């Protein structure tokens, strides 16, 4: 098995396509997106804010989870570019280690 990186980005739906464009621009070999149904953020005020799908008819508050498995060499460039995006948009980014079987697929 080969070591790769797994990027997980939780981002608001209106910025979804921007995130995709960034990922594609960085040359990742693929990604998958899943719809979130609810979420919570403590926020700076410490007040706490919950959201839930269906609360907002414009669906502009919905979040999307994007998973992308990529080469270790790529991860720094990708996170740097995405950092700018989640500076503007609501989002959460994390990276972890994974093993894959097909080395050249990613």
């Amino acid at each position, binding site marked *: 098995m080969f070591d790769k990186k797994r990027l997980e980005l939780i981002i*608001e*739906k*209106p*910025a979804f*396509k*921007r995130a995709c464009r960034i990922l594609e621009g960085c040359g990742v070999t693929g990604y998958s997106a899943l719809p979130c149904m609810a979420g919570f953020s403590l926020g700076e005020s410490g*007040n706490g*804010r*919950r*959201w*839930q*799908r*269906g*609360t*907002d*008819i*414009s*669906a*502009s*508050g919905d979040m999307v989870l994007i998973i992308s498995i990529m080469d270790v060499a790529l991860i720094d460039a990708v996170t740097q570019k995405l950092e*700018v995006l989640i500076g*503007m*948009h*609501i989002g959460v980014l994390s990276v972890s280690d994974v093993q894959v079987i097909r080395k050249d697929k990613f």
Partner: protein
Amino acid sequence: MSLDLALSTLLSPIVLFFVLGLIAALLRSQMTVPEAFAKGLALYLMMAIGLKGGVEMSKAVLGPDFIFLALIALILSFGLPFLAYLALRLTSGMDRINAAATAGHYGSISIVTYVAATQALQLAGISTSGYMVAIAAVMEVPAIMSALMLARKGLKEKGAIGEGAIGSERGELVREVMLNASVVVLVGALLIGWITGEAGMEKISPFFVDPFQGVLCLFLLDMGLSAGRGLRQGWRDLNVGALGFGVYMPLISAMIACGFCYVLNISAGNAALLITLAASASYIAVPAAMRLALPQAQPSIYLTLSLGVTFPFNLTLGIPLYILLGQWITGL
């Protein structure tokens, strides 16, 4: 008579189902209308409205009256956000970016409020023109441009202008705004109704005309749930000045529209509809555009105001008032 009108509006099944949803959400019932189902109904409603308007338009000749009205509508949609921005900045202490985003919502329109007004007018026996749907469509988008113009100063202050969002992705933004679902379906159905006319409508009216009011009940139940949940989660972010804005801004818009109606000398029914459009605030097209173009603005502010405060106000008290205003101004 005015009390009668208010009462018959308030006790119509449509409004009662909205109130049912509102109460259920405020009591924290877990009840929901599935999102996909509600969006399907929204689509149905917009197609039905567009088709009906188009068929009406196919029967009459569109004269200069229509052109003038469309021009006024454009001015209203484009201009009202500037007023709303001023009002917000003066009374609520909201920062520039949030005020701009919120202001944009009040220039654009709510198609459900429009439909509810047409139903109330029909009940009251006041006739309206089919082309008013086209007027509604005209008012959807310009307000978004005003909001972006208003936000420039705030963005400059924050040093956020010139960044990717506003720079390179303008094309995408324009496309998403001009081709958002409500504009496409409304204008598309309008054209289709116009082309096929009465004859084409005949075969599809058992689906698009007869059940319309019933579907509206189901849809307003969902709107009540959304408004109630939005209100419960969002009111903490709003001070009294902001909450008040949600009620007095529609009234200001209504007065201004009233003035235009007087000048244009249009019928009582059309006047009531134009006033309603001016007084209504968007909660579908504009919020989606704002998340794209002004991600720094907070949805909890503008959505709570437009969906949680202004929409319920218009649906219950606003519409009867706007109808009376329309009758009064054309009777002068």
